[in-house]
């Protein structure tokens, strides 16, 4: 009897909640039709429909017959990729580029922010920042063009070293070039977020620390580092989450036929196999493999951080 009553009240509860929602939607129809609809349509068309398209990875795709009409081959493309000798090389190239890139590029803007925070005159600081931000506005193509010019056998770097290496053809130089030019371009810009967090550090706390005779190291440890710790953590998780999505644009623009041993990463391989060779099924499978690794990395990173950070994740 009691159970029946709660069941019915649950039912009416559900029904009335649905009813309320409908009333709300009728009253606020503009929110749905004018505000949300464009974004929802774009998301469904350009994000979700291609997600359905990953089925191509399991077929011998034939453009004329479409996805469903093409021959179903199961995991053939995946096994072909995973068992090919190139697989390990491309995977390692991708991982090395992003992990070494992270290790070098991640601390650089934090260091810059701490240094900038030491500049006493705010006028000089503004001017320095203007220069530091400048490379961020150079396009990938121009950046890589500059890199190629400076590193050419007759370029500025060889001039300074008194040598004539052709750096762009050396696989062992590729990662250094990629990472160093990345820091050159991005460190100043990335430091903004830390500079802003530092300027939010409690002024009173800092003044008290200075009055108590704290030196710079002590100020950093007691006031400044706590002020940016959370920002650093969030930025770190997001960078790790993007480890497998190393930028295609720059890697491709720095590739030469001779440095492919180090510069062929999964995303450039997907592009070449798919759009240049027309091997759609295989290319999609490789791309899907990349995405899955990325999601796994992100989820596990988030749970590690949750454990370290008293249950607070992102």
């Amino acid at each position, binding site marked *: 009897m009691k159970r029946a009553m709660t069941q019915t009240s649950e039912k009416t509860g559900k029904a009335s909640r649905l009813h309320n929602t409908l009333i709300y939607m009728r009253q606020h129809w*503009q929110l749905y039709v*004018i*505000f*949300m609809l*464009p*974004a929802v349509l774009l*998301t469904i*068309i*350009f*994000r979700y*429909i*291609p*997600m*359905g*398209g*990953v089925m191509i990875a399991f077929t011998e795709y034939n453009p004329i017959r479409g996805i469903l009409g093409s021959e179903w081959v199961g995991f053939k493309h995946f096994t072909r990729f995973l068992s090919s000798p190139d697989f390990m090389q491309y995977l390692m190239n991708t991982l090395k580029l992003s992990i070494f890139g992270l290790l070098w590029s991640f601390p650089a803007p934090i260091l810059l922010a*701490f*240094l900038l925070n*030491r500049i*006493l005159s705010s006028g000089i600081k*503004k001017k320095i920042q*203007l*220069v*530091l*931000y*400048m490379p961020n*506005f*150079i*396009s*990938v*193509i*121009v950046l890589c*063009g*500059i890199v190629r010019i400076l590193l050419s056998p*007759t370029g*500025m770097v060889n001039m300074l070293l008194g040598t004539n290496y052709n750096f762009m053809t050396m696989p062992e130089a590729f990662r250094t070039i990629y990472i160093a030019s990345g820091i050159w371009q991005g460190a*100043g810009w990335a430091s*903004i977020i830390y500079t*802003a*967090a530092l300027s939010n550090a409690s002024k009173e706390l*800092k003044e008290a620390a*200075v009055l108590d005779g704290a*030196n*710079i*190291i002590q100020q950093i440890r007691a006031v400044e580092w706590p002020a940016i710790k959370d920002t650093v953590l*969030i930025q770190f998780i997001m960078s790790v*989450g993007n480890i497998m999505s190393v930028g*295609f*644009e720059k890697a491709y623009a720095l590739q030469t036929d001779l440095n492919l041993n180090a510069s062929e990463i999964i995303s450039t391989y*997907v*592009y070449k196999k*798919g*759009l240049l060779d027309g091997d*759609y099924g295989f290319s*999609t499978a490789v*791309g899907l493999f*990349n*995405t899955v690794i*990325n*999601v796994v990395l992100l989820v596990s990173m988030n749970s590690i951080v949750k454990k370290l950070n008293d249950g607070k994740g992102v």
Partner: protein
Amino acid sequence: MNTKFSRLPRSDKAIMVFAYTILGLFMAAIILPVIYIILASFIDPITLQNSGLTFDFSKWTLTAYERVMTNAQIWTGFKNALIYSVLFTIISVTVTLLAAYPMSRQDFKGRGFFNVMFVITMFFGGGLIPTYLLISDLGMLDTIWAILMRCAFSVWNMIIARTYYMGIPKDMQEAAEIDGASEMVYFFKILLPLCMPIIATIAMWQFVGMWNSYFDAMIYLNDAAKQPLQLVLRAILIQSQPEPGMVSDMQSTAARAQLAELLKYATIIISSIPLMILYPFFQKYFDNGIMAGAVKG
């Protein structure tokens, strides 16, 4: 906080010297290559290849600039890049700001659902080929729509705008409702004018992002007349294949190659000028925009 340098303890002086040195080196690393390229762009191609920079002004020439400035493709590239970037910024900012509004309201029914729907796309996507086939099926290949629509809605920017909206005091909305203002009136007349800093920031990101990218144009546009600046630059800077007309009057292959090399310097300078002039004016928007994004992570 303006403690005088001379009154600092000795260990702090050392740190200050270290700070200025590292910053100085970093700035030098940014400025020197730029100066080198500016200087080199004026030097006669043969001299440049054989002996590098020179201050013998008889060896200086404006030929590279003349050739780049009179090249039709560069100007077509500029024009296309401007059209794509302006339209993309308008579409993208509109869609993003609109969607951020319901998502910022606690009472919006379906908020959780839409949130999950959007956030999934930040981590998972169909990848290159499925997207390419979709664009092809939609008949968008070789049209401006392939460039404009695919990334028009940015979940990341929506989150940033939403966070900013949520920082606007609730009283505003309540007062507007009491006065009988509809949602549309509140959004356009009251909320948006208060959000100009974040709108400017997002618009700047979208504009610069579109101006500087080449991947989408490379795969979706084949027609030379539709190519944006970055693809024209790619031919000159990366593939070392300037449009034949730019170097064809040179007699030998070697002379053509030397000239093509010199053209790179002038191209870098000319193509970078617009953003280099514009970005200092944006500087005041940098900080607030980035911080707005950081609040929510």
